[in-house]
């Protein structure tokens, strides 16, 4: 047993954190002034967008752990980059169905993302394309969905789809609906591939949530050290300390669950890998909203204003929480396995 990151993985974390700090959203004005494609370009240059889309589709160069590391660092700085949708969810679907070369031009030549059900809880089926939503839709050329929800059908690729952006609660990532779809291309989904895909995707969303909570908490802890009321820093009050400590525990528990699930993506069978991923996402979804709400509370009045960064963390957490199923959806699925 060795449940720690390797030296190489630590180095990847440092590298990802360095790229992430270049594209960080530190205050709401950054979102307006920033070239929306900058983050994508920087990540592509650093080789962080195609960790698992190398030439050998059956043996990805990077494991789920590397994907987790990058996702967490991007979440921590609210990176406005379509990483989860195109670089993780779509890439993993293409890899598992052997269609990377055909549909994305290999690597990132074409930006592909996924079509989710209207409640964001699962990948959409083609027959419900009218209500479905494109997640991480910014700059997307193509969209993936499935013919059947049970994993026995085909993966469908919608090219030349006309997209209409919607008002995403989270301004760092785009959501769109499909106005005009056209006839899709199709490729068979191998048995078990959709479970494997879901495991990797849940891990990446959980990691983004960990980063989001971590970044939010780090900011407010720093604030509590310097904000003075009653002649002392508010961080010296036990009521404030306990709120922050509870948030820290929630984040650490989610991190332990997610790291194991990230390892399991490539090392365990699809069933146990998916169970581990659901456990991670269940906890991440359960704690993310209270943690980000706590952060707004500790900031006090300034935390309720548009100019304060904390509502951007909360917004990102709210969207992630819903993605591929909130905690209740995960608990129901876990109960189906454990109580079968």
């Amino acid at each position: 047993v060795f449940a720690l990151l390797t030296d190489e993985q630590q180095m990847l974390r440092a590298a990802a954190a360095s790229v992430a700090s270049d594209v960080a959203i530190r205050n709401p004005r950054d979102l307006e002034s920033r070239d929306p494609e900058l983050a994508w370009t920087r990540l592509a240059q650093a080789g962080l967008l195609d960790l698992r889309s190398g030439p050998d589709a059956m043996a990805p160069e990077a494991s789920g752990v590397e994907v987790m590391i990058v996702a967490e660092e991007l979440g921590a700085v609210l990176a406005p980059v379509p990483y989860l949708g195109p670089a993780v969810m779509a890439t993993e679907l293409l890899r598992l169905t052997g269609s990377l070369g055909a549909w994305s031009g290999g690597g990132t030549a074409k930006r592909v993302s996924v079509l989710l059900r209207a409640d964001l809880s699962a990948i959409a089926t083609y027959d419900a394309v009218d209500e479905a939503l494109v997640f991480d839709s910014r700059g997307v050329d193509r969209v993936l969905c499935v013919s059947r929800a049970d994993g026995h059908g085909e993966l469908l690729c919608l090219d030349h789809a006309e997209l209409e952006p919607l008002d995403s609660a989270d301004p760092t990532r785009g959501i769109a609906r499909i106005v005009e779809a056209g006839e899709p291309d199709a490729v068979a989904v191998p048995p078990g591939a959709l479970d494997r895909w879901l495991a990797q995707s849940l891990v990446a969303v959980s990691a983004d949530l960990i980063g989001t909570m971590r970044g939010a908490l780090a900011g407010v802890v720093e604030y509590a050290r310097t904000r003075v009321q009653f002649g002392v820093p508010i961080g010296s009050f036990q009521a404030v300390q306990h709120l922050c400590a509870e948030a820290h525990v929630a984040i650490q528990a989610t991190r332990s669950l997610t790291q194991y699930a990230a390892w399991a993506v490539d090392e365990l069978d699809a069933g146990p890998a998916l169970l581990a991923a659901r456990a991670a996402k269940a906890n991440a979804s359960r704690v993310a909203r209270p943690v980000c709400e706590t952060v707004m509370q500790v900031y006090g009045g300034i935390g309720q204003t548009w100019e304060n960064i904390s509502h951007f963390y909360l917004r990102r957490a709210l969207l992630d929480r819903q993605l591929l199923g909130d905690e209740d959806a995960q608990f129901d699925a876990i109960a189906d396995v454990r109580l079968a």
Partner: protein
Amino acid sequence: MDYRDTAEEARFRSGLRSWLAASIPPGWEDVTDARERAAIDKRWQQALYRAGYMGMSWPPEYGGRGLSPVYDAILVEEMSLADAPPFSVNVNYLGRAMWTHGTEEQKRRFLPMILSGDAMWCQGFSEPEAGSDLGSLRTRAVLDGGEWVVNGRKLWTSRSPTADWCLLLARTEPDVAKHEGISCLLLSMDTPGVEARPVYLSNGEPATGEVYFDGARVPADQLLGARGDGWKIALTALAVERGPGDVGYISKYQRSLRELEALTRSGRSSADPELRRRLAAAYVRGEAMRLTYLEQLSSRAVGHPTGPEGSVAKLLWAEAEQTLNQVAMDLFGADSLTGREPRWLSQYLYSRASSVYGGTAQIQKNILARRVLRLPR
């Protein structure tokens, strides 16, 4: 990164598993008398010691095997899975306090005896007026003709009614700052003037104890470390290896959860969708506890013992244990209140102590806030 056993770990685990299957004393769980249980526990630890299963990560010069802490974890895990009697959980942190602070002579005298189970120990730390604020303890020890004379009272001294020895904190320097005036004594529980009594917890079980000291005399060479080192020694003991995995709690939790799940599957208890979700949440909490522990073990194995960050595991433990027992009470409904399921009522009541013993949840949060998050005093 690898969450699986290495080849050697797997070999050790399978050897241990066969040994346990052949060696566990039958019917031990049905013994309710505290003294009889203590005798069983003692014989069991002696058997583990003879078979080479005690002190896996202790230095070889003091009777250990010098292996990675992962082996301690495998031992505790397999013992719990096999329903073996637990060995005294204080062995590892007593040992650590002893080999970190003891003289060579003390180590040679006491360490093999701690490990072999020939002497069972209790830990005289808390007092009626010194709970969370341990540093304000009042039990006094005064040097008189080459002996320390001890007067005072200790509380929450688990296993004290059956223990042979006590690692005792007492105030020896009344005139210095409170944390600097404490020393650590090694006291035989046979000493005249020592009286241990059981303390009954809310479930009616004598799960802990109290000890009265009335002029008890301790030879001067049974001072551990120097005069005034007591607080430092207490921190060594408290910081080391008291996570939910170290004391076998994780496997116990998983057993309880599996029992509740089996009950639900068999349809014997009502499992509405809400209770099914809560059982799933209990599974997730158990996994969080298990995986946090594996990370701590791995850190220890590369020479980074758990520091204040260990409070995370303690808080996860208390939350997991308390919510699991709430789910159990709700699954059994009235049966847990009308004498049909006494074990679950007892376990539920005992679970309330898990956010108090070993440092209250509030103290753990203070530690995390100040020492991990670096919030100001």
